[in-house]
């Protein structure tokens, strides 16, 4: 029994591995979905384009859904959060995991012709440190305070729905942390978000090991 870190070719996993090791988590990167029945938790990382999630084919989906059905925990990071939804307009023909309702959309610039009210132009992608707004209480957010900042790098974002426990505003408000049953998603990179990121990661890993 361990945590499965899914390596489906979505960029570089070095910093996720480093954070997991730092936090004392036991994990492996299974070669294929056949190994997942022995797993009690799954982490779907991801950077870059939603298209990379095409590698998470029907076999992976069934195996990941199986882990959750057996009471395991699923954490999606960045594109991994977006994948929890029905899809993304970044790759319109490609379905997401579909556990959460709604589709991810390109971050809209509310003021494309000029400066916004606070004098800052909303560039897309959204890169850098931005604040978390607590939408409701959740064990995922234990030890995290309103306004704590985390590191983002993305162009597409998930809608604020009933499963959104933390949101961030960049031109528009989007879901930066989601939780539904045993599924958690983080749009930012907890592995690159200093102490706040490590705390969020630890909250999930503690639950995964419980």
């Amino acid at each position, binding site marked *: 029994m361990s945590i499965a870190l899914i390596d489906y070719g979505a*960029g*570089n996993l*070095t*910093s996720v591995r*480093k*954070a997991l090791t*730092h936090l004392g988590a036991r994990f492996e990167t299974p070669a294929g979905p056949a190994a997942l029945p022995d797993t009690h938790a799954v982490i779907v990382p991801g*950077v*870059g*384009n939603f298209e990379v999630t095409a590698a998470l084919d029907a076999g992976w989906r069934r195996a990941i859904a199986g882990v959750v059905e057996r009471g395991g925990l699923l954490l999606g990071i960045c594109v991994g959060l977006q994948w929890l939804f029905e899809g993304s307009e970044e790759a319109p023909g490609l379905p997401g995991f579909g556990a959460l309702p709604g589709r991810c959309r390109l971050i809209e610039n509310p003021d494309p012709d000029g400066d916004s009210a*606070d*004098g*800052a*132009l909303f*560039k*897309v*992608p*959204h*890169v*850098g*440190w*931005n*604040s978390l707004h607590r939408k409701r209480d959740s064990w995922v957010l234990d030890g995290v*305070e309103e*306004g*704590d*900042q985390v*590191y983002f*790098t993305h162009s597409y974002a998930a809608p604020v729905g009933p499963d959104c426990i933390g949101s961030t*505003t*960049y031109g528009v408000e989007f879901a930066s942390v989601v939780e539904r049953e045993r599924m958690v998603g983080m749009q930012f990179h907890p*592995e*690159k*978000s*200093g*102490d706040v*990121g*490590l705390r969020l990661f630890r909250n999930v890993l503690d639950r995964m090991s419980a």
Partner: protein
Amino acid sequence: MLSKRIIACLDVRDGQVVKGINFEGLRSAGDPAALSRRYNREGIDEVVILDVTATIEKRKAMARTIHAVAQEIFLPLCVGGGIKDEAHADAAIEAGADKVSLNTAAIARPELLTALARRYGSQAVIVAIDAKREGGGFRIYVRSGQQATERDAVEWAQEAADRGAGEILLTSIDRDGTKSGFDCELTAAVSEAVSIPVIASGGAGTFDHFVDVFTAGKADAALAASIFHYAEHAVTDLKQHLHDRGVPVRMGRWARTGAAESPA
């Protein structure tokens, strides 16, 4: 609100930081990992390691440096200096870098930006531009500022973004090392021309220079080296200075709660 980022640059040679190591009483200042640990504690947002030698023989030593720094910080880590091809980029990322910065190689072979963006995502690809004021424009220099090109900084920044670069690290050769302030005109010209973040570099001497480059210069981030080496708490003090002047920065909880003391 999105914060303006403060980035510390470590100029490394033979595994040691080579700039601004003369702060008394800070014996470990030359060690990149020790310096990164201190910056992390003080609230730095990101770290850039520039290998100022970057010869083939030194690359293995560089990988050890990257790995040592990556063990200290859970922040974005960028590595640059002498990255010529995909193999160099792979080695840096394998060692723990989140981003690689390309300068001379990107001008010579712009398609390298696209290849690396496909492989690692645009967020991992930074194009470094060294520019100098000439004839009313901003001419690009390569090979550590030694060789002039025919390229204009604003036009190349746009092309680099189109080709897949995710950020621009923009250094003013005129201001670098002068401590006379960032070149805000250069920074604003590039920042307004592209939709990707621009990191301003070169000329930081006072905290107010950062205020200027984040307002008049329209920079998304600012990078400096020696200003942070000289004094303990320089990063914390700079962020407090920016915060007090209304520039959005990532602050520790001590600032938001109004307490005066620094974090433990």
